C-alpha cells in the first residue's frame, strides 16, 4: 500500500468520525470553515495548477453566488432550491464574463485584470442598494431546510461541507485525466502547440474559468449559509487575497493543498487573534516561510516527506512523477 493511499484512508476516517470525538468548537468553527474555504481555494488550484491562470477573483465569484442566493431567497422570498440554482448560475455567468475579459492576457496581467474585476464588483456591491443591499448587504440568509431539519445545524453542516469538499476534490482529480483537463495542463505549458493540434486555446481558458467559477460558487453558497448574511466585506481586497494565501500555503499545484492551506489559515486566524491583534502579520509570516522554504506549499513538503519515507522503506524504488518541476 502506498504512503499516499494510507494517508488518504487515515484522513477519511478521522474527518468522518470527527464530530463524535472532536470538540464542537473545532467541528463548527475550525473544520467547517476550512472545508468551504478549501472549496473556494480549490477553484484557484484548478485554474493555477492545471491551467497556469492565477486568478484573484475567485472569492468575488463565490461571493456573487452568495449574493444571488440571498437576493432570491431573502429579497424576493423564493424557495431555497431556486436560490441555489440562481446563485450557481450567477457565479458561472460572472466567471464566463471575467474569463472572456481576462484570458487573452497571462501571468501578472491576468492577475491584475482579475483583481480589477473583483474590485469593480466590490464597488458595485457597496453602492447598489436595490440588489446588493449596499454597505449592509443582505441579512437573515438561511440555509435550506430538508425534512424539517436545517442544514445549518452544526453537525449536519459539517457533514454537508465535508461531502461537498470530498466530492469537489475527487472531481478535480478526475478532471485532470479527462481530455478537458489534459488540454488544460497542455495549454499551461505550450499554448502554441495546443493551438497547432486544433484546440481553441482562448475558448478553452474561458471554459476552464467558468468551470472553476461554478466550483467557487458552490463554496460561496456554503459560506453564505454559514455566515447567515453577506456584505461587501465578504468580497473585499483582503478576502480576495486570502484565497490566494490559502492556495499557496497548501500548494497551488495540489488539489489537496487547497484544504490543507484553508485549515492552516483558519487555525492561525482563530488562535493568533486570541493573543495578538496582528493575526494578519502571523498569516503573512506563515505565507512568507512557506514560499521561501517550500514553494510547492505544504502539500509539496508532504510529498517530499512521503518520497523520503518510501526510499527509506524500499531503497532504490523509482521516484514518482507527480508534477515534477524539471
Amino acid at each position, binding site marked *: 500500500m502506498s504512503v499516499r493511499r494510507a494517508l488518504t484512508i487515515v484522513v477519511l476516517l478521522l474527518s468522518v468520525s470527527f464530530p463524535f470525538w472532536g470538540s464542537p468548537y473545532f467541528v463548527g468553527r475550525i473544520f467547517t470553515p476550512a472545508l468551504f474555504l478549501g472549496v473556494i481555494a480549490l477553484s484557484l488550484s484548478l485554474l493555477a495548477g492545471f491551467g497556469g491562470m492565477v486568478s484573484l477573483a475567485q472569492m468575488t465569484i463565490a461571493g456573487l453566488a452568495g449574493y444571488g442566493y440571498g437576493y432570491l431567497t431573502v429579497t424576493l422570498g423564493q424557495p431555497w432550491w431556486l436560490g441555489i440554482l440562481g446563485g450557481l448560475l450567477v457565479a458561472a455567468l460572472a466567471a464566463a464574463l471575467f474569463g472572456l475579459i481576462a484570458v487573452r492576457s497571462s501571468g501578472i496581467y491576468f492577475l491584475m485584470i482579475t483583481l480589477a474585476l473583483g474590485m469593480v464588483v466590490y464597488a458595485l456591491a457597496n453602492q447598489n442598494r436595490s440588489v446588493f443591499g449596499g454597505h449592509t448587504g443582505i441579512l437573515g440568509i438561511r440555509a435550506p431546510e430538508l425534512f424539517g431539519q436545517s442544514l445549518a445545524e452544526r453537525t449536519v453542516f459539517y457533514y454537508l461541507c465535508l461531502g461537498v469538499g470530498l466530492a469537489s476534490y475527487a472531481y478535480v482529480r478526475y478532471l485532470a485525466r479527462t481530455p478537458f483537463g489534459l488540454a488544460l495542463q497542455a495549454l499551461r505549458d505550450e499554448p502554441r502547440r495546443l493551438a497547432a493540434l486544433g484546440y481553441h486555446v482562448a475558448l478553452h481558458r474561458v471554459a476552464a474559468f467558468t468551470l472553476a467559477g461554478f466550483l467557487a460558487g458552490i463554496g460561496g453558497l456554503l459560506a453564505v449559509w454559514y455566515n447567515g448574511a453577506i456584505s461587501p466585506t465578504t468580497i473585499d481586497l483582503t478576502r480576495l487575497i486570502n484565497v490566494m494565501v490559502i492556495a499557496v500555503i497548501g500548494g497551488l499545484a495540489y488539489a489537496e493543498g487547497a484544504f490543507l492551506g484553508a485549515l492552516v489559515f483558519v487555525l492561525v486566524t482563530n488562535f493568533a487573534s486570541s493573543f495578538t491583534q496582528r493575526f494578519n502579520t502571523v498569516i503573512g509570516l506563515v505565507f512568507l516561510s512557506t514560499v521561501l522554504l517550500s514553494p510547492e506549499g505544504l502539500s509539496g513538503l508532504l510529498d517530499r516527506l512521503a518520497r523520503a519515507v518510501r526510499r527509506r522503506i524500499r531503497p532504490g524504488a523509482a521516484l514518482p512523477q507527480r508534477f*515534477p518541476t524539471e
Partner: protein
Amino acid sequence: MVAVESPRLETAARALELQGVGRRFGGLAAVRDVSLALEPGERRAIIGPNGAGKTTLFNLVTGELRPTAGTIRFFGRDVTALPPHQRVRLGLARTYQTPLVFPRLTVRDNLYLAVRGVRPWRLSLRAPRPGDPEFAVVAELAERVGLRHALSALAGALSHGEQRQLEIAMALASRPKLLLLDEPAAGLSPAERESLAALLGSLDPTMTVLLIEHDMDVAFQVAQRVTVLHEGSVIAEGTPEAIASDPRVRAVYLGGTHGE
C-alpha cells in the same frame, strides 16, 4: 482589380497556393511577395541561409502570423484569415524547429491530445478508458516513430531526438493533408537522421509535405522540388539537381557555413 474565379473542384485545386504573400515587422520585410504552389502529394523543400524568412513563411502558412500582403489558399479555400486551430482541423499540421511537446504530460497523453484535437468533443469531461479507440491510434503512432516503449514516460524526459519523433507523431495524429516540417533533422544524430529519413519516406504518398531545411543534403534527399528563399524572396525553384547547379543559389550559399 477583381479576379473572377470559376469554382474549382477540390481534387483539381492545389494543395497549397501562396500568392504575393508578404509579412513586414515594422520596417523589416521578413517575407516579401512570395508565390508558391504545391500540387497534392508533392514533396517540397524550402532552403535558404539563416534569416531568409523560412520560419516566418511557415508561420504565415499555419496562421500563427497574419500576412501583411497576399492570399493563402489550402486546397482551393482561402485560409488567409483563419486562426491556426481551424487550419489544423482542415488538415494542416506542423512541427517546430525546436521540438514543442507538453513536457509534464506523458508521451501517451501528448499523443492522445493530438488525436483528439481534430475530433469533435475534444474537450470532453469524461475520462478516457483504456479500451477507447483513440488509444489504438496512439499506440500505432508511437510504434511508427519508435516510441512505443516510452508511452508512459514524461515527454520532458525524452531526448531531443525522441521529442522530435514524438512531435512528428503528434502532427501525423491529425491525419493531415499537408505536413509542414520545420528543420526536422536539426540537432539529430546521424542514426536519428536515418530513421527520420525512413519515416518521411514511409509517409502516405498522397500527403503533401513542405519542409524547411538548412542543410541542402537532407532537403535534396526528401524533396522532389526545392524552393530557395533569400532575404524574404524566392530566388529559385526547381528540381534538386537544377537547384544544386544554379549559380544564384551557389552565390547565396558561397562562403556560407554549410559548405562541409
